[in-house]
């Protein structure tokens, strides 16, 4: 009850280029094994940061550590200048949203009700007035308005993924963490997700996205962080990081990188 009465700290507006999340010397242990070792990484407002790397490299673990789902064994994660455990769960939810890999729902809520759940952190604050507008906008941006009143459980996998993304957008947190948002989607909707991420970044939000498709990472990310075996192999602009030699070594498979004939962005292809 005491925790309820303490004043909730509403987020301060952040400028592009400010640090949203900072991991320093981050080590995460699971089942006695180091899944991440000594990772340093800054996430800045106004940029899309892609986390790539082979299976088991620790991408999702890093995202979960950013989110506060797993506690680091060593090192710290700071959000908006304070360590994660200095914020209450609700204060964290006002500052960062997270799209999980799996979308489960115990009861057959309508899609629009699922999206409205994204507004829960703002209940009883002045920003509660934006609820309906935030929900409508999120559903428009994710192309989900057409099935707003259908039960979530009756939707196809791709539709569910987009409704889940709409819920995350409706939360209107300045930092958005996306764990493989394109896994269940066709090409059109993959592009839609990254266009949404780009729009978020343009608004000054920070977007961290775990993605397997190196082509998408190369095309949309402002920076790419390549993880390998729990450590940071490289981090920087796509053109600098996504090189044939680095990727071939990290993925242990021959990979070609050629510049796109029109945009000049790197195209990543396995040797076939």
């Amino acid at each position: 009850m005491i925790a309820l009465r303490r004043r909730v700290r509403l987020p301060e507006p952040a400028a592009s280029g400010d640090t949203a999340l900072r991991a320093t010397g981050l080590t995460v242990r699971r089942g006695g094994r180091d899944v991440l070792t000594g990772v340093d990484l800054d996430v800045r407002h106004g940029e899309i940061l892609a986390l790539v790397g082979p299976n088991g490299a620790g991408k999702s673990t890093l995202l979960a550590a950013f989110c506060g789902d797993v506690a680091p064994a060593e090192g710290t994660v700071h959000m908006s200048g304070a360590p994660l455990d200095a914020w209450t769960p609700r204060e964290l939810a006002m500052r960062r949203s997270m799209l999980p890999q799996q979308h489960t729902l115990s009861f057959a809520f309508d899609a629009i009700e699922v999206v409205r759940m994204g507004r829960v952190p703002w209940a009883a604050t002045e920003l509660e007035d934006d609820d309906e507008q935030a929900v409508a906008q999120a559903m428009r941006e994710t192309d989900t308005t057409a099935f707003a009143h259908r039960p979530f459980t009756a939707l196809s996998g791709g539709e569910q993924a987009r409704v889940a993304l709409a819920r995350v957008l409706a939360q209107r947190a300045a930092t958005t963490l996306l764990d493989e948002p394109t896994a269940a989607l066709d090409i059109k909707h993959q592009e839609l997700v990254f266009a949404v991420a780009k729009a978020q970044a343009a608004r000054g939000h920070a977007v961290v996205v775990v993605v397997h498709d190196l082509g998408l990472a190369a095309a949309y990310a402002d920076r790419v962080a390549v993880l390998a075996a729990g450590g940071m192999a490289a981090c920087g602009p796509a053109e600098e990081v996504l090189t044939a030699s680095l990727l071939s070594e990290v993925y242990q498979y021959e990979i070609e990188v050629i510049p796109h004939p029109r945009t000049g962005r790197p195209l990543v292809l396995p040797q076939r």
Partner: protein
Amino acid sequence: MTAVTEARPARLKEASTGRLKVVVLLTALAVALVVMAVVAAALGQVNIPPTQVVGSVLHKIGLDVGPLPDAAQGDNALWIVRFPRVVLAIVTGASLGCAGAVMQGVFGNPLAEPGVIGVSWGAAVGAAAVIVFGLTFLGNWTIVLAAFVAGLLTTLLVYTVSRSGGRTDVVNLLLTGIAVNAVATAALGLLMFAAGNDGLRAITSWQLGSLAGATWPAVAAVTPCAVAGIVLACACARRLDVLALGERAARQLGVDVEKLRVVCVLVIALLTSSAVAFSGIIAFVGLVIPHLIRMAVGPGHRVLIPASALGGALILVTADLIARTSIPYQELPLGVLTSIVGGPFFFWLLRRTRRRSGGWG
């Protein structure tokens, strides 16, 4: 811009029909409950016309309106026998309906119900022990307290045992329920073995479930528990909605899941003990009612919880009326009546759940 203005009227219309449905449902349930309560008080071995029932109540609260009962001992029959029974039916039914809704929400499983998973039986063992050993250190409250403590322990046990990896699957939940029921039934059997004749009769009537023991002191003992439970449950409603996304996602949305869980277990124990203490085990109300409400207005807990309380009360007042009037000078056990209807419903629900999830996961 045109797309927005075109889409808006349609969405608003759907939203307002949804809200209208909720208002209609809640009003209909409340009106039906009041009507049914008057009818239940009117019918019995001596029939008293509903107008005289209402008149008697109005006179009691100081309004000299309407006719008084003209049957011999009519007023006494109402105030000593029927009213406490009707009120106890309302309190018990509301507790059961609400407990079912909360339990399903916190377990994330539409098959959870105090009777099915053994919590009612656990609470009954606590209450039976008090009767058999003749404990009265808190007067009427002793039974309620014993039922509450035993119910709380059973809820905690079922909750911790049936969960794995942050969720409760159907098989685990039902198997845990079978185990808990087996132990609780054995404990009740032991108590019956140890009990004298009076205790034996009391325990038997509980296993079958009955409101025959309704008195004003009993009503006074359980009502605060039920009211506290329902109010707390309503306060958790929005967070229970979010919990449907899974514990991790709920936490990411700022819900303090651990606290919510503790509050809900407390609510379930409060409601189950208030329902079981004097009425015994009345199964399936907490399963059927929330399910019907979900089919009518969707799974949102802010409507589901109050509507389940109203619906549970309505069903139990009706069922009790049937139990005591269908056979002249005899009384059907209430719990038997609800199980005859609720058992097949549970079976249907089980099959449907299995078909939907493509297995027992």
